């Protein structure tokens, strides 16, 4: 191999070059949810329809008559991402388009909370849709109120410091796995290659596919916009948000086995929403991560 060829190989693109999300969208600086959309569309391509319920992305896409997407978007009601997508898929099939991928794209509030009934119904029926939850761990679009995805210890405007959230985050992955859907994956904006690879895999599977995507929110987490990728990476490396796949509710794969997991402390300290936590509360969070990690390894064994 010549020197030039070696150099060229070094710069091989690991993600598709196509951009189906244009600039001019309305996201905050450092928005993880925006990166998540961009990576997903790189994998799925032009033949995609998005159903977006009330969530940050209902705004990010742009106001009428604009859209920052180069794919069709249906803005649907808060709790209807899964049910609307179900109808869209049926409607497309009945009008001769069996090829287009239909995606329900909701935040954690629309998925963990108000939309869980429609999601559970669609998953139980194994509707042929991809459901993506971009999780920023609170109702960010309405101004940082707690959701059932908000983790233990976090400040939000409805869990003030004196009464911070004292219940653990709902385990949406376990709930969705219990539906025995063909494919379920977690993904992070810090690991785009992993994300795109999983999305490509999902595209080739029929039935309900669910993605839980970790999407930091500087506005709501009181973190620096430039720390979004750093935080997302730390969450994977400290075991807070493991990258996994579950097929048919049974076969669990851990995509990134971290032998030397870092303490959660540094991750928490970069976010103003955890500033009030005392050492014993940080220790409780660390202990919960350990418990969940052990459980995950057991499931994957």
């Amino acid at each position, binding site marked *: 191999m010549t020197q030039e060829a070696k150099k060229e190989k070094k710069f091989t693109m690991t993600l598709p070059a196509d951009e189906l999300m244009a600039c001019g969208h309305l996201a905050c600086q450092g928005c993880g949810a925006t990166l998540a959309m961009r990576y997903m569309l790189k994998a799925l391509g032009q033949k995609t329809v998005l159903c977006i319920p009330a969530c940050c992305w209902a705004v990010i896409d742009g106001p*009428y008559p604009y859209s920052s997407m180069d794919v069709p978007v249906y803005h649907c009601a808060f709790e209807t991402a899964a049910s609307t997508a179900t109808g*869209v898929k049926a*409607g*497309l099939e*009945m*009008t001769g388009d069996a090829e*287009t991928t239909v995606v329900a794209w909701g935040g954690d509030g629309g998925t963990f909370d108000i939309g869980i*009934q429609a999601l559970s119904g669609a998953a*139980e029926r194994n509707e042929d849709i991809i459901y993506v939850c971009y999780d920023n761990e609170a109702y960010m679009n309405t101004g940082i109120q707690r959701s059932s995805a908000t983790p233990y210890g976090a400040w939000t405007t409805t869990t003030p410091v004196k009464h911070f959230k004292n219940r653990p985050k709902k385990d949406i992955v376990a709930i969705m796995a219990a539906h025995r859907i063909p494919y379920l994956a977690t993904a992070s904006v810090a690991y785009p290659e992993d994300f795109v690879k999983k999305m490509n895999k999902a595209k080739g599977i029929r039935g309900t596919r669910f993605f839980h995507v970790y999407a930091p929110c500087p506005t709501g987490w009181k973190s620096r916009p430039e720390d979004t990728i750093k935080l997302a990476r730390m969450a994977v490396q400290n075991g807070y948000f493991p990258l996994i796949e579950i097929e048919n509710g049974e076969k669990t794969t851990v995509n990134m086995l971290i032998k030397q997991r870092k303490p959660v402390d540094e991750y928490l300290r970069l976010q103003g929403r955890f500033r009030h936590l005392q050492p014993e509360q940080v220790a409780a969070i660390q202990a919960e991560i350990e418990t969940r990690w052990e459980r995950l390894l057991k499931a994957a064994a």
Partner: protein
Amino acid sequence: MKKVMMGNHALSYGAMLARAQVVSAYPITPQTQVVELLSEMCADGTLEAQFIKVESEHSAMASCIGASVAGARAFTATSSQGLALMHEMLHWAGGGRHPIVMGEVNRAMAPGWSIWTDQNDSLSQRDTGWMQFYCSSNQEVVDTVIQAFKVAETLMIPAMVILDAFALSHTYEVVDVPEQALVDKYLPPFKPAIRLNPADPRAFGGLTGSEHYMELRYKLEKDMEKAPALIEETGREYEKLFGRRLGLIDAYRCDDADFVFVTSGTAGYTARVAVDELRASGVKAGNLRIKVFRPFPYRQVREVLGRVKKAAVLDRNCSYGAGGIFYQEVKSAVYSSPGMPPIFGYIAGLGGRDIMTDSFKEIAAHAASRDRADEEIVWIGVKK
């Protein structure tokens, strides 16, 4: 072909003949037979459609909306609590201009639990941007579903085809089932100008500022105002093919009447019998059955009532604090027009209580005993 069928199956046949492509529904008494038959039709290929067996009425309407905006003809059916659960999505279908047709079986709202008929469920949805057709026979149900798709898809406004619980939904009548080839001639395939299409990407229903929102609603109202003429025109077209005219109102013996009942639904058929009996006893009675409640046929109602001396509106519903809902509309229709008769308001038949010919005779006697209608709402057959 003539068939004996229940009102609920008349809805199913209507959807089948209209070649609905996506049916999404959740069971509720007294609607269940509508979706049971459609589910069989989808399973055995009589109807080439996808049947989505959703987990709630809210999801039923959401998936009908998705199917409609993808370009498919969508049908659902519900009743009462199910319709109330759909409320948010009814606004979505109306405001989003998705021409879904829905069978709606009138059932009283809980509490206390009731499965019997009254109109408070559907009339509570009057401001959602849906057309509402109230039927009084199973024949009218089949015919109206077919017509409703035609009108809905022309105007891009959804439509409810409404029938009384049990009094019609579970009552068997002879129905002349329209011939499929003629229905296909009457109702061409649904081809919306814009839809969810990756080759022509568009965003639907995004964030709409005050500089645009009002115009969208203005257009909805202006298109809704086109509906009365379109319903009459498509009703005449229907008559040419099938021999039955479909219109906004059904005026029975009103031409020379002194006194007219204003009715809707199955009570409108009972009223006909009462009219005949009253005429036999010397009262020149008539019956104006209102078929379409939204858009309200103000002009047609005015034309009939302008010729009579008194009118009595029978409401199988109540807007608490304002009385009968049809009564309010009828009063609005005649207000400020010269030469209009006094309009009396009566409430009867809530929660499935029977409305008999005697109920109409009681109403006629009450109206005959006074010269002018005051604001009092008279309850018929209530135990005080």
